[in-house]
């Protein structure tokens, strides 16, 4: 069973120091370094997001559908990598990245905003004419996100928990191909979410390397499974991905299992680092 490495709490409740220590050893202090580094990672991505979104929005407003389509997936990558932090601002997350399902009127709902609203027009209508205002608003929201993240003190539990959050995101919306249902560029998001998660694991790895070698080996194995499959679907010399529809049933299943297992395993990461 995969839960062998977890420490039953009975001993902890009974006041056994030894067992309590096993989990609490890495006091949150240890995380100052990783959290600071993560903050840089997030800032870089959000800055990049703002730059790329500006280009994307310019293409939309110029009515250059082909260019807008080409920029859509690579722009989103910067958002998807840092989604656990972006999600802290739920108003902006909804404004930037919500899907038609989040609205009663679906695609036709006037409240449906953001990337996916533009995606809908670009791919389903092959037009950008009805989303120019949406594009303006998107850029404003992305800049607002950039500003807010700049001022944010990163809570360590959110940073560490983010590794699992990203896997939950993939499991819930990417595996089914529902996130980018018009453009079918889900493999880009898939990769970005996975990168974002792996980054967090890398940052905390030194803290648990010794004690959690088995755990990390299992986590690494599953990350590798996901990356290996993603590699098969690269195009353009590794700069992009084929349509999500090209993913075989078999590969999707293998990825689903690896992602589910990562979500299970990484859900213990906070606890392993002594965080709530």
């Amino acid at each position, binding site marked *: *069973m995969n839960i062998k490495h*977890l420490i039953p709490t009975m001993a902890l*409740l009974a006041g056994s120091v030894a067992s309590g220590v096993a989990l609490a050893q890495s006091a949150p202090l240890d995380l100052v370094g990783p959290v600071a580094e993560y903050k840089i990672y997030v800032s870089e991505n959000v800055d990049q997001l703002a730059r790329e979104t500006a280009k994307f929005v310019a293409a939309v407003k110029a009515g250059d559908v082909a260019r807008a389509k080409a920029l859509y997936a690579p722009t989103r990558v910067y958002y998807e990598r840092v989604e656990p932090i972006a999600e802290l601002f739920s108003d902006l997350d909804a404004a930037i990245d919500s899907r038609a399902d989040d609205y009663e009127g679906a695609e036709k709902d006037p409240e449906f905003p953001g990337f996916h609203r533009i995606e809908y027009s670009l791919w389903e209508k092959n037009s950008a004419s009805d989303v120019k205002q949406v594009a303006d608003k998107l850029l404003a929201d992305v800049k607002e996100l950039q500003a807010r993240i700049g001022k944010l003190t990163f809570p360590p539990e959110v940073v560490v928990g983010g590794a699992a959050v990203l896997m939950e995101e993939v499991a819930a919306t990417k595996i089914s191909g529902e996130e980018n249902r018009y453009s079918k560029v889900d493999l880009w998001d898939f990769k970005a979410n996975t990168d974002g998660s792996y980054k967090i694991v890398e940052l905390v790895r030194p803290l648990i390397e010794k004690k959690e070698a088995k755990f990390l080996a299992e986590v690494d194995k599953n990350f590798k499974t996901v990356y290996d499959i993603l590699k098969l679907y690269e195009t353009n010399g590794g700069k992009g991905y084929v349509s999500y529809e090209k993913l075989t049933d078999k590969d999707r299943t*293998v990825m689903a*299992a690896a992602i589910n297992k990562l979500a*299970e395993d990484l859900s213990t990461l*906070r*606890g392993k680092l002594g*965080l709530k």
Partner: protein
Amino acid sequence: MMTKQETPAPRDVTARKGTRIPDAPTNRRMALKMGVAALGAAWMGGVGAASRLGGHETNVTNAPVTNIASPEDRVPFFGKHQSGVINLRPANGMIASFSVLAETPDALERLFRRLTERAIFLTHGGTPPEYDPRLPPADSGILGPHIPPDALTITVSLGNSLFEDRPWLKPHKPRRLIRMTRFPNDALDAALCHGDLNLQICANTQDTTQHALRDILKNLADQLVLRWMQEGNVPVIQPGPDGLAESARNLLGFRDGSANPDAGDEALMNHLVWVGPERNEPAWALGGSYQAVRIIRNFVERWDRAPLWEQEAFIGRTKVTGAPLDKPYAKESDVPDYTRDPEGEKTPLDSHIRLANDRTPETQDNIILRRPFNYFNGVAKNGQLDQGLLFICYQADLEKGFITVQRRLDGEPLEEYLKPVGGGYFFTLPGVAHEGDYFGSALIAAVRAPAH
């Protein structure tokens, strides 16, 4: 407790029922569950008295009786055969179908062993470990801190694709296992069909079946990916005034299961349900069974607008009592006599039951053990109710059993009210014989044995 389950002797209520709890009230409860007819008998002499009953008390499709089920009901896990096939059907059941991640015999063994471990724990009941609160809890907690057995059974069956997609497993495929093919009235939804492995999970309550599913999903996330599932249930009924066991009704309002073969008749089960040596199957498959699953939607609004005589003619039994049409005042356990009704004046020749079983000596090898559940899936896009039958049946030979019977039913008038939309064919593994053994151990051993 986890004693080795012998193949139940015919009419041994406890062995078959599996709820072996020492105190007297529980004995009474068990007997009750076998059918209300057992009530008096159980009071008088305990379970042995059940042998005075006719064959019908051991019908797996007897309706569960109100206030009889207990969370402490335990169905023995170990045995020659898996549970969940010939033991009485509890009020809730589901089929959950998975894709399997196991590219090597070792990986498959690992999956089977872990599945066994979870199934033993869940069917036996117990207290899950407690973890540090900073970690996710070991258990979903939906049954509370202590998990009762609640008559839970977890039955493991393998699909055609598990074998076909793995060259090292393919030579060991049960001979009659195939991918389910379309019948003329089917409208199969690919998202509801087939699978590498399915779990039939049955229990007194839906919470228990759901709890078991979530436990398995959580613990086997890296090897099982859920593809589809269908839940169902069986109406729990009041004991009848005559004290007789009744079959539960399906969503057409008819008693379903009346003519099921007697699951308490060991010889009969060995002949019809369990794969025996005479079947010429791979040795590892002995003690297993073929499972056919069909998700069959019932057009209930339309059915409710059909005249009663037509409903009865289409089914071939009376609606209120389930009696055969040629003996309308008889009991549901009575069988029609088609030799006296060759033209089908009483029981139409194209009625469901007459097509399914014409009761001639030639078709007796086609008898199947049905163990279905009713399902309620809310409302369809057209505003009609999405309800139907999660049809599950077991047989020692898939071709002679389900496939032959379904072919005979093809084109039946009842089809106007039915639409099969999903399901698949599977092979139900032999039982886990004893502690230390695991699901599919004989299959794994066969895979590892040097080829000759």
